């Protein structure tokens, strides 16, 4: 099959996170990041670079874009978790991503439930259900 991407095998790869602050008002808690760090996924390298980004009110779209680009190009990251609320801010970038590794998983946040209609990966395969696209290929 043409254009099959090479799968980089690795015995110990990381899970990266880009998650938004939860909660309203002045009491904002980063529960998603704190929770997954409790589960042991946090990694800080020798240059003090982390495998997560907490998106708060001061975080710019450029910073989110840079973090997404960095995590999706690092060879030691296998999965990138991104709150769907944050993914919506950089939707064009997430839509254009098409490598098998790292896998991008959009996750809900406390204030913003997951909506499959906005998921970039699901949107990419949705057209397979379109009768026009399927019928045109069948002669």
């Amino acid at each position, binding site marked *: 099959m043409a254009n099959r991407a090479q799968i980089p095998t690795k015995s110990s790869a990381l899970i990266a996170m880009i998650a938004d602050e939860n909660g309203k008002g002045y009491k904002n808690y980063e529960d998603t990041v704190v929770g*997954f760090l409790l589960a042991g*996924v946090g990694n800080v390298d020798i240059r003090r670079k982390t495998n997560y980004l907490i998106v708060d009110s001061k975080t710019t779209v450029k910073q989110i874009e840079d973090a997404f680009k960095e995590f999706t190009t690092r060879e030691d990251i296998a999965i990138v978790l991104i709150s769907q609320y944050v993914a919506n801010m950089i939707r064009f970038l997430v839509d254009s991503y098409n490598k098998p590794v790292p896998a991008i998983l959009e996750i809900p946040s406390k204030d913003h439930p997951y909506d499959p209609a906005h998921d970039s990966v699901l949107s990419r395969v949705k057209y*397979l259900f379109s009768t026009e696209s399927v019928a045109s290929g069948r002669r």
Partner: protein
Amino acid sequence: MEERHLTVDQEPPQEAAEVVNRREVRLEPGAEEKLVLQFMDSLNSYLSFSHSLSSTLGQAWMELASARHSMGTARLNTSLLDLKFHPASTTLKITECDDDAKARFVLRKWVSPEEVGEDEDSNSTKSSVPADDDDEAVRRERAKSLSVFGILIPPKLRAAQQSFERALETLVEMANMQSSFLNSFHQLHQEVEDNKE
């Protein structure tokens, strides 16, 4: 060359091999249906897991909020996170399935730094390598993760940790299903494009 002169009624035996050769370039009808089923199954599983994830995360957030209520906000926030050099205890192993070019992720929970280099059983079909709760090293790694937030850890924080671990397992299942349906999709898409030519 000989193919152009053949009629429907006459197919010399050597033509069968050439027909087979032509078909090798495209999927046979049976393989196509199998791919469609694989696509639908993987997509259905992915959506089921995402519902399960939402439920697990909801419970985890509730437990974390309860822990924060008993510990106080100052003892449970991101300013306490360890920013010194340390490797992740929970990592992933990436392999490639032999039958088709799709990635497979295996979660490795609470691996101590000494065990990082050890090779896991590559024939395992499970998405998670279960952490033996009785293992001293696993208990040590779990406790180290909790100790960031102090010595006296309330039960709700331990429960939240377990819930987020379950969420991680679900996420790895989702990643594997995503890999599967994307792989099927690309093959079917290629078939549709080939049929258009």
